[in-house]
């Protein structure tokens, strides 16, 4: 038999072995076996090699090495053991225990290495001759390494990574360039012995380069270690050894001055890593409500938790919005602006003064609350305030714009990220497999949720099977169609009705407002908000009832339901806005009248005083007495604040009544009721994820809409979200039952985000409209006296920037420039879209190609499998024959045989597996046992069928390789 094929097969074996074993010392018995076999094979191979290349000193060398290692083994093992103990005792007391086994691993490793070296050398005869000399061996080894790299790269790399190579023969180690290139750390006593030879002066630049590479590789290994599916013990060992290696050789890198610098750099990177890790820990410690959410997650699964995560995300956004408005608008005005009572817009008018401090008034955000930093009207139009000339109006405007811009940015970025994560999952080709492999939510820790999950998985399986069979009989398609049309009609009626109701109520409230709010009852004053909140509460329930008519699949039904609620909220919001627009127009008419009156009033005032003193001294009128305009901006802000407050209240009250009270009643009345309340009609409530998310989204929409006119809105919302978090967490844990239908969280994530984006757009639309088209009130707010609010930009440009800047700006805003720019953007969008389309097409093509490939593979595989099977059977037969010979001497021989068969199969799949029968009982037998059965193998089957077990796997491996590469 030609030596080369033998060698390659041997090579494969080795690699596979190492690969599968990956230095798992619990598998020592396996390795021992292989070692035995290998040693046996070694002898043969050596002989064969000798015959083939008679003068090759290499094999002599090999034998020498072999014998040397054999003689030294025991002693070395002992030494090593001692050393190990010495080294590791600092880390872990128990480490010593496994040292004996480790020493064995080491031995086998060494064996492997020796053999590998030899083998490779066998491939290149020319290198063989200079084997004896150390200096040249260095070269050889380096070349060998290159060979390895080029030839068997992937596997070799794997191996190098996985292998904890402690020892090679001394000569190899001394070369010091060899171990680094292979990335295998010789970090045990050899290193210590030859430490002197690792001095940088002795290394050539290339070697240094290689050393560096090796160190880098080790570092990479350390970093990637956590992503390896190995048992912890093995990872620990690898980590320690790589760290030792890195420490040892890092110092050797760089010369003279450079060395110090290098050491410093290394130290700094270490410090930096540590800092990063600490920072990471700190960051996770800073995430609020993590434990709460995890608790909920483990009780109710990921979908309920996703609501709370969304809530937390919303909280984060509002935190930033609040920071912007609070830090740049409210605080500067409160600290540096004119104090309360200095000018009319900052004073409560005389007429309202009496009741300005009443709680009812304050609750409505009238009185003192209205004339404070909380609302638009309070801000002065003074261009610069305070000692460092803070540009208040500009800041106000920019914060308003920044709020919206930031929100857009965040929402779109999150959407993009979500799309990245789930974008690939849109094809339906793995419908069943996904249901099978990914439907269990491992977070579920509550038996009840688990039962619900079982049920829902079963139904989903059954439904999928039914759909697949397409035996679904539509018993009465006309009836369902009719019912669906009817349901949609009813829903439309509901929507129109609620829209009209809101419009009606808003108009009525304007009448009340004209009459003066004091003359009306509490209900009449808060009618709008209450009606809106009640509609938001009851209409979804109505929709729910209506949707039972439709008989949709629950998932589809949920989407319909969400869409309808969305439409309802949107309709309500927009009716509200339209009504508000009417109110604004009314106020502006009123404003005109007031403005006229004020000029009259001022004129009369001046006339009255002018007769006495022509120089017109400042007349001291208390600012509260000055007549003033209606200030529609503050009115809008107030409306939104009231809306938020009443919405929050309704949410909390529904929570308390609908969830808590219901739960209490059900629990305690159950003893004395005629039917089972818990299982029967009222039962406990479920947590309505979609409804809650929608509520949150609309709430946020109102914030975006109103924040410009009421800077306090983000603060209020922050408060609301904070309270919601605790209240809802508590409510969920104490009075809700897990959902019957457990939906996946991830599927709807981007759906919610898309809704948020739509709401953001729709809510900025009216805000921008009012800012751009309606002139600001003449006597309140930061923009009073200007024609339009955005004039503040113009003003700043003219007065605060050098002339050339405003010139440049005016050029840039010239339509001649803006239009081409827009055109360019459109072109870019078009280009990107078309490229994405072509990528998609390419994807489809690739998919097709893959499929055809699979078909081919399938055929090939079948043949290969057949062949392999026959081979395996033969091998089994011979193996059992061989085993029969041995059985009387030792019963465990057969067992090992079987073990190995399984093991060989397994190692294709599990690289870190440990089919770990006890090691202890094998070892004493080893010297006798090991070679025994192997001899029979070789003897029985001859060269052509050397180790059929491996032959059998060599063919399927063609297809397995990708799976190996993954690790």
């Amino acid at each position, binding site marked *: 038999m030609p030596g080369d094929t033998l060698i390659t097969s041997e090579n494969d074996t080795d690699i596979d072995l190492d690969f599968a074993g990956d230095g798992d010392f619990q598998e020592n018995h396996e390795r021992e076996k292989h070692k035995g076999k290998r040693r046996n094979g070694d002898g043969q191979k050596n002989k064969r090699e000798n015959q083939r290349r008679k003068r090759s000193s290499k094999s002599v060398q090999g034998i020498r090495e072999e014998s040397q290692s054999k003689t030294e083994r025991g002693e070395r093992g002992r030494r090593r053991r001692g050393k190990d103990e010495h080294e590791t005792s600092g880390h872990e007391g128990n480490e010593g225990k496994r040292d004996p086994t480790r020493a064995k691993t080491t031995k086998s490793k060494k064996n492997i290495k020796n053999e590998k070296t030899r083998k490779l050398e066998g491939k290149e005869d020319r290198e063989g001759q200079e084997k004896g000399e150390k200096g040249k061996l260095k070269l050889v080894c380096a070349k060998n390494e290159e060979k390895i790299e080029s030839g068997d790269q992937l596997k070799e790399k794997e191996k190098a990574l996985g292998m904890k190579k402690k020892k090679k023969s001394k000569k190899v180690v001394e070369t010091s360039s060899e171990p680094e290139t292979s990335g295998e750390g010789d970090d045990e006593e050899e290193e210590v012995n030859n430490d002197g030879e690792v001095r940088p002066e002795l290394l050539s630049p290339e070697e240094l380069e290689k050393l560096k590479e090796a160190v880098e590789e080790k570092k990479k290994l350390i970093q990637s270690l956590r992503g390896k599916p190995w048992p912890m013990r093995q990872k620990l060992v690898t980590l320690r050894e790589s760290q030792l290696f890195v420490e040892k050789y890092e110092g050797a890198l760089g010369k003279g001055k450079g060395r110090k610098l290098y050491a410093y750099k290394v130290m700094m990177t270490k410090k930096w890593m540590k800092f990063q890790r600490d920072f990471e820990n700190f960051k996770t410690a800073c995430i609020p409500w993590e434990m709460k959410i995890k608790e909920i997650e483990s009780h109710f699964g990921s979908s309920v938790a996703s609501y709370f995560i969304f809530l937390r995300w919303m909280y984060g956004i509002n935190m930033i919005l609040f920071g912007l408005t609070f830090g740049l608008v409210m605080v500067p005005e409160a600290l540096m602006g004119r104090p309360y009572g200095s000018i009319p817009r900052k004073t409560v008018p005389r007429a309202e003064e009496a009741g300005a401090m009443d709680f009812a008034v304050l609750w409505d955000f009238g009185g003192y609350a209205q004339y404070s930093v909380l609302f638009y009207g309070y801000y002065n139009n003074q261009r610069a305030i305070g000692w460092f000339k803070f540009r208040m109006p500009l800041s106000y405007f920019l914060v308003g714009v920044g709020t919206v811009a930031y929100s857009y940015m965040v929402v779109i970025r999150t959407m993009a990220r979500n799309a990245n994560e789930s974008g690939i999952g849109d094809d339906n080709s793995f419908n069943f*497999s996904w249901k099978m492999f990914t439907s269990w939510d491992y977070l579920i820790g509550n038996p009840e949720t688990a039962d619900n999950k079982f049920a829902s998985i079963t139904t989903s399986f059954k439904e999928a099977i039914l759909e697949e069979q397409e035996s679904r009989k539509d018993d009465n398609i006309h009836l369902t169609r009719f019912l669906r049309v009817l349901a949609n009609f009813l829903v439309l009626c509901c929507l129109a009705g609620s829209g009209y109701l809101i419009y009606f109520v808003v108009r009525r409230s304007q009448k009340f407002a004209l009459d003066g709010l004091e003359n009306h009852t509490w209900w009449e004053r808060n009618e709008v908000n209450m009606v809106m909140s009640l509609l938001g509460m009851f209409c979804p329930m109505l929709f729910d009832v209506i949707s039972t008519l439709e008989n949709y699949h629950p998932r589809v039904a949920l989407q319909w339901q969400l869409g309808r609620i969305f439409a309802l909220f949107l309709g309500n919001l927009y009716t509200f806005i339209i009504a508000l627009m009417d109110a604004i127009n009314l106020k502006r008419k009123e404003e005109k009248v007031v403005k006229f009156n004020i000029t009259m009033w001022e004129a009369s005032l001046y006339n009255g005083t002018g007769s006495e003193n022509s120089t017109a001294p400042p007349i001291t009128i208390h600012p509260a007495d000055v007549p003033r305009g209606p200030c529609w901006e503050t009115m809008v802000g107030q409306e939104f604040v009231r809306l938020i407050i009443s919405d929050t209240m309704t949410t909390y009250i529904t929570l308390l009544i609908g969830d808590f009270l219901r739960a209490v009643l059900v629990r305690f009345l159950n003893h004395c009721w005629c039917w089972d309340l818990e299982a029967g009609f009222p039962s406990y409530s479920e947590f309505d994820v979609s409804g809650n998310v929608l509520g949150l989204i609309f709430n946020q929409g109102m914030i975006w809409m109103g924040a410009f006119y009421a800077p306090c809105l983000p603060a209020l919302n922050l408060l609301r979200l904070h309270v919601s978090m605790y209240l809802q967490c508590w409510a969920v844990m104490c009075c809700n039952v897990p959902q019957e239908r457990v939906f996946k969280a991830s599927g709807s994530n981007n759906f919610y985000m898309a809704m948020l984006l739509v709401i953001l757009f729709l809510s900025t639309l009216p805000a921008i409209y009012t800012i751009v088209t309606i002139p600001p009130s003449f006597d309140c707010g930061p923009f009073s006296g200007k024609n339009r609010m955005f004039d503040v930009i113009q003003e700043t440009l003219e007065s605060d920037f050098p002339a050339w800047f405003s010139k440049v700006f005016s050029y840039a805003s010239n339509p001649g420039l803006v239009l081409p720019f827009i055109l360019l953007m459109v072109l870019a969008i078009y280009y990107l879209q078309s490229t994405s389309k072509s990528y998609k097409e390419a994807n489809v093509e690739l998919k097709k190609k893959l499929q055809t490939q699979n078909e081919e593979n399938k055929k090939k595989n079948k043949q290969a499998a057949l062949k392999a099977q026959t081979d395996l059977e033969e091998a089994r037969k011979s193996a059992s024959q061989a085993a029969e010979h041995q059985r009387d001497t030792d019963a465990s021989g057969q067992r090992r045989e079987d073990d190995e068969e399984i093991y060989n199969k397994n190692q294709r799949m599990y690289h870190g597996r440990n089919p770990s029968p006890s090691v202890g009982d094998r070892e004493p037998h080893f010297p006798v046992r090991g070679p025994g059965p192997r001899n029979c193998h070789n003897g029985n089957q001859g060269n052509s069928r050397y180790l059929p077990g491996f032959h059998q796997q060599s063919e399927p491996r063609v297809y397995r390789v990708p799976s190996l590469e993954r690790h």
Partner: protein
Amino acid sequence: MGTTASQLAKDSLSEYQELTFLTKQEILLAHRRFTELLERDERKNLNSRVPMEIIHTLPELKSNPFKTRICQVFSTSEDRDGSLTFEDFLDLLSAFSDSATLEIKSHYAFRIFDFDDDGTLDERDLEKLVNCLTGETEDTRLNDEEMKQLINNILDESDIDKDGTVNLSEFQHVISRSPDFVSSFKIVL
């Protein structure tokens, strides 16, 4: 037990952080929870094993249909009884943690689903898997015909090389395209 924090030496704590996807707090919490499961006199020893039955009393695993498999997969015990040391326990939590990669998650998922440990998911494995997912009660079980249909469908989709079993790379291929897997293959303490 007040000494739990000091029991984990700083060195090993940082090593564990290096080797798992867990943060320091999580490792400490895991250690606390783990020592609670141990007998008093075993707590000093980092290598003491907790039997599978006691691991299963953890609320996080209690209702998991795969709890036995999970313990077996992560156990390094020589008797294959599914008992876990603290390090095995950390391995488990790391694989199920938030930040673990899809690759490692799918690798362990495969091993969990591979009931007979033969390296492929064959029909028997899939059947057991379905039974795990549908629960123990009779009314949620699938009947034989449905089961057969289901398994055939799954093999149709996932078994790319058509050898009648799903191997690791096929499994990972399927899993990697699933939107839900990473978010649901999680266990947190």
